[in-house]
């Protein structure tokens, strides 16, 4: 009888252990559900603590400082400078993490998905221990591998460390045309975690290593949570009035005619049309 009772107790203990393990497994990931937005008053510049443009004080090489200044000059004249997104090319990484429009985050054991409304960007951050693929096509968002870290040893993950490579271009840091190198060898390292004092504040320390920069450049992005979100559909090409023809960009007027974006801009060369405009 005593042996039987001990056996039952052992089985019971084992069962409780299984239940606890299952519960622990379910709860080891942080709770990042909901909709994440830029905090009120934060614009769409790369470093949210500084104004857009030269005040960002980007650590650019002399060559890319000139590229940046040419972008700003072109934008002053009515052009788009080094900002490629006017033709509805997505911003790619790391600019996607400016989160122009809100994002949500799905955490699964094998991957974390970041779904960003702006430009329909879906990041897959693989956390299954894989290595960098040899055959992946370069993309604007790149290829992201992540690692969950339990920093305070409480059995729950706190930080998602992410490295992103394999980008293609053209990309820029923000709408002023702050450039990344055209070699597209950018490496982006992120540490994403909840603020310890405010569980509705998500922090992303983003370090960009790029040949347009003299040193790695780290900025901190913050996002605030809306737990009862409304999602909108962002369709960049819907009513996009910007038109690029060859190397020149133009605008389509409200009444449907092509118009210049710069003072004294010439119309496009229409040599492939046999007939003249009536």
């Amino acid at each position, binding site marked *: 009888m005593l042996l039987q*009772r001990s056996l*039952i*107790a052992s*089985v*019971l203990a084992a*069962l*409780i252990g*299984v*239940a606890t393990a*299952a519960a622990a497994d*379910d709860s080891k990931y942080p709770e990042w559900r909901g909709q994440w937005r830029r905090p009120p008053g934060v614009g769409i510049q790369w470093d949210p603590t500084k104004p857009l443009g030269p005040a960002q004080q980007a650590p650019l090489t002399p060559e890319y400082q000139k590229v940046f200044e040419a972008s700003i000059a072109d934008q002053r004249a009515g052009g788009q400078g080094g900002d490629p997104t006017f*033709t*509805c*090319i*997505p911003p790619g990484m790391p600019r996607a993490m400016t989160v122009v429009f809100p994002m949500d985050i*799905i955490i*699964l054991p094998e991957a974390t*998905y970041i779904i960003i*409304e702006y430009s*329909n960007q*879906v990041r*897959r951050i693989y956390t299954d221990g894989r290595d960098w693929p040899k*055959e*992946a*096509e370069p*993309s*604007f*968002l790149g290829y992201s591998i992540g690692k969950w870290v339990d920093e305070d040893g409480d059995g729950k993950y706190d930080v998602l460390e992410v490295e992103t490579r394999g980008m293609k271009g053209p990309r820029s840091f923000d709408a002023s045309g702050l450039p990344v190198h055209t070699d597209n060898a950018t490496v982006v390292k992120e540490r994403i975690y909840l603020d310890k004092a405010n569980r509705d504040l998500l922090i992303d320390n983003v370090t960009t290593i790029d040949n347009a920069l003299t040193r790695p450049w780290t900025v901190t992005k913050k996002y605030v949570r809306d737990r009862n979100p*409304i*999602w*909108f*559909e*962002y*369709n*960049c*090409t819907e009513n*996009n009035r910007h*038109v690029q*023809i*060859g190397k020149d960009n133009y605008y*389509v007027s409200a*009444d*449907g*005619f*092509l118009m*210049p974006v710069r003072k*004294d*801009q*010439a*119309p*496009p*060369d*229409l040599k*492939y*049309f*046999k*007939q*003249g*405009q*009536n």
Partner: protein
Amino acid sequence: MLNRNIIIAAVAALALATVTAQAQDASKYPDWSGQWKRPPGAGIQWDQTKRPGRDQNPPLTPEYQTIFEASLADQAKGGQGENSRVTCSTNGMPRVMTVIRPIEFVIQPKLTYVIFESYMPRRIYTDGRSFPTDQEPAMIGYSIGNWRDLDGDGRYDLLEVETRNFKGPRNLEATGIPLHRDNQTVVKERIQLDKTAKDTLLNEITVIDNAFTRPWTITKKYIREQGKVIWNEDECGENNNHVVIGKDNYFLSADGYLMPTRKGQQPPDTRYFNQTRN
């Protein structure tokens, strides 16, 4: 002694129930993981079993049959007809479920995501909510789903989805099979694994639309990638050579000049340019 046995039995029952409940909860959703593609040989027409165009035999009203015929005639001359995808506008529902490029399902207890390579993800809410009254219309609509356990085995087999609240322009395939411009479309889907082939997903789609004389039901099949899953980034806006100016569409030549898409097409009106091209 009796008391002790009762306590042991009660705790054992509780532990078992807890483990069982957790296991059931984790496994009650079907395994739709992986990458889903159109079956080999299936094109991008609406009804996979018929050829695109007139052979689809859409149950169009006489008014919308005329619109469809005009679309086909325009495309025969080099135009785009009713196919609004030319500007990279999202295809919207239900056309996105043609799955031109692969998709992924991410099933969460209250929400199922359908993630595309080309468009914003669909969010199918399965938390028992009603259709909102204050949501902006969207090309992808607003989707509410209901999981069903058809065979009573304690696991869900079928996701029933209803999608409403659209905007346009939308159509069913590249030939321009039109949907009504009132955007009152209702789409009902029944998504489930094929009982005899667990790597085949069936989506029975019924479209109720005022362009049709009756609800139109077709079944889409998707097959699960058995090899290595590779996700690509499909950015329609990248290198899109179609240009729409006013009501006319043009094409950009490989050497960067605007060119006609129809025989005898006039060039765009350049009345807003002060200068002439040298």
